[in-house]
């Protein structure tokens, strides 16, 4: 596909959003309908959603409920059919380059090694760093995602989970202020998943990132997020919102055995299970 014209989202909003208390991400009655062979398909019913600065929000719901659509709207890859999507209080009208988007599909460059894929962002003019520093940061990220020894492997030579981690490292390396993550750990085995959750949690805290995290794993959502939002089955809308009042820093390895976690899990599962059943019927 040829490149399209892309305009940066206005870099300097008139006011300092943090000072003014403007939320990082705001969806106001945003909905999305597609036309598939002349038929209207509602991917997302009007949704109101606010993500504060440095907040970690998880979206859970059955497949096809519009979670990914929500991320695409925030990234500026899609325009809302109705309503508005604001980032730092400014409507998102073009590609939103201040977010790092980890899509479900790993979009690695097949002719680049893992290390070269991870470093690609640092080669761009807008994020250019000296070569030595770039190499050092690539090495750090390779350690972070546990891919040491696979630096010189091509994507085709890596497993699905490894490719996912390369994609993750490739986004984390330029430290975007906001992460959009679409089931980033879905392809990982259970142990690695916990490890990555732990790393992510620390990183997000250190770098003061805002995160919008899509997952189908309720436990993962509770373990990581400040707030969990349950989506209904298609057409998607918000069914329930729960704050996760568990203290930080959290121990992702053990917290699922705590009472607070269990109670929240049960509560959210009650909301989710009907929707999952609906999703399966379709």
């Amino acid at each position, binding site marked *: *596909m*040829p*490149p*399209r*014209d*892309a305009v*940066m989202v206005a870099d300097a909003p008139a006011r300092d959003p943090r000072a003014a208390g403007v939320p990082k991400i705001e969806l106001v009655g945003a909905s999305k309908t597609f036309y598939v062979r002349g038929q209207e398909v509602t991917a997302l019913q009007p949704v109101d959603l606010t993500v504060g600065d440095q907040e970690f929000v998880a979206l859970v719901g059955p497949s096809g409920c519009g979670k990914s659509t929500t991320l695409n709207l925030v*990234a500026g*890859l899609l325009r809302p059919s109705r309503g508005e999507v604001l980032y730092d209080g400014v409507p998102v009208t073009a*590609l*939103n*380059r201040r*977010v*790092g*988007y980890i*899509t479900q*599909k790993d*979009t690695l*460059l097949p*002719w680049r090694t893992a290390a070269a894929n991870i470093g*690609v*962002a640092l*080669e*761009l*003019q*807008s*994020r250019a760093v000296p070569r030595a520093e770039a190499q050092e940061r690539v090495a750090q990220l390779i350690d972070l995602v546990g891919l040491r020894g696979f630096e010189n492997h*091509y994507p085709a030579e890596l497993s699905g989970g490894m490719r996912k981690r390369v994609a993750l490292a490739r*986004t984390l390396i*330029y430290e975007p202020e906001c992460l959009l993550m679409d089931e980033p750990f879905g392809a990982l085995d259970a142990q690695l998943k916990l490890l990555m959750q732990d790393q992510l949690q620390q990183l997000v805290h250190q770098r003061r990132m805002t995160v919008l995290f899509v997952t189908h794993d309720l436990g993962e959502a509770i373990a990581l997020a400040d707030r969990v939002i349950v989506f209904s089955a298609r057409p998607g809308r918000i069914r329930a919102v729960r704050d996760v009042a568990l203290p930080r820093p959290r121990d992702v390895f053990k917290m699922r055995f705590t009472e607070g976690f269990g109670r929240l899990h049960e509560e959210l599962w009650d909301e989710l299970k009907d929707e999952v059943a609906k999703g399966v019927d379709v």
Partner: protein
Amino acid sequence: MTAVPADRPTDQDIDPRPRLTRLVLTTTGLVVTRLLIIGVVLLAWELASGTLVPKFWVSSPSAIFARLVQWIADGSLWRHLEATLLAMGVGYVIGCLIGVATGLALGFMPFVQRILMPYLAGLYALPKIALAPLFIILFGIDIESKIALVAITVFFMLLYNTLDGVRDVDGDLVEALELMGATRREIGLKLLIPATLPWIFTGMRISVRYALTAAILGEVIGANRGIGYLIEASAGQYNTTGVYAGVLVLVICCVTLTELLTRAETSTRRGGP
């Protein structure tokens, strides 16, 4: 090395094919068999010529060989071969350069591509050989018109291959780089060009053969030098010996070219990631 027990059959023993077949299928056996076949054909041709069939139609291997020796001796073979290979080579390089450049440019500018595509499609569909008379008017009877014919043939093959390559680039990869903050130039350099390279190489490989065909056709239609001219001029004088000799030179050219290409392909495939 472990010795094969005497009571157990070796691979050779259980090969169900007759012994003659097995003999022929060895490397030397193959070469000898092939030489035998060509020898028999040539001998039959030589004997039939002037007895079963008039010499005028089929010439004879000895006459063709004598003609080739004569061409080599008086230097005319090299003069003609040089003209053909030069037209083919220069036309090929020009066609490749302009084809790839145009393909990438149109790939980068989908808008322009949409406007121009019908014209390009029309020209692409046109058998280029129909342009040969026009090129002779425009560029003269000399080598330039042949270069033009080869170049335009190769140009379209490379243009279409490059465009297909750009079109095949995964839109999600483009989006991913755009979100990272890549400029259009960077997307071109880091994504579109590397992704299109295999398509370009394929186009370059395929079009070598078409380049030779275009050069020969151009020479047959109107030229004063070249192997194609040699064949056409001989035919014009009802000189079948000259025609066969020219065709034989062409066959040797094609076989050499194919062999070189196959070797180049295997070596690049081995060297690739």
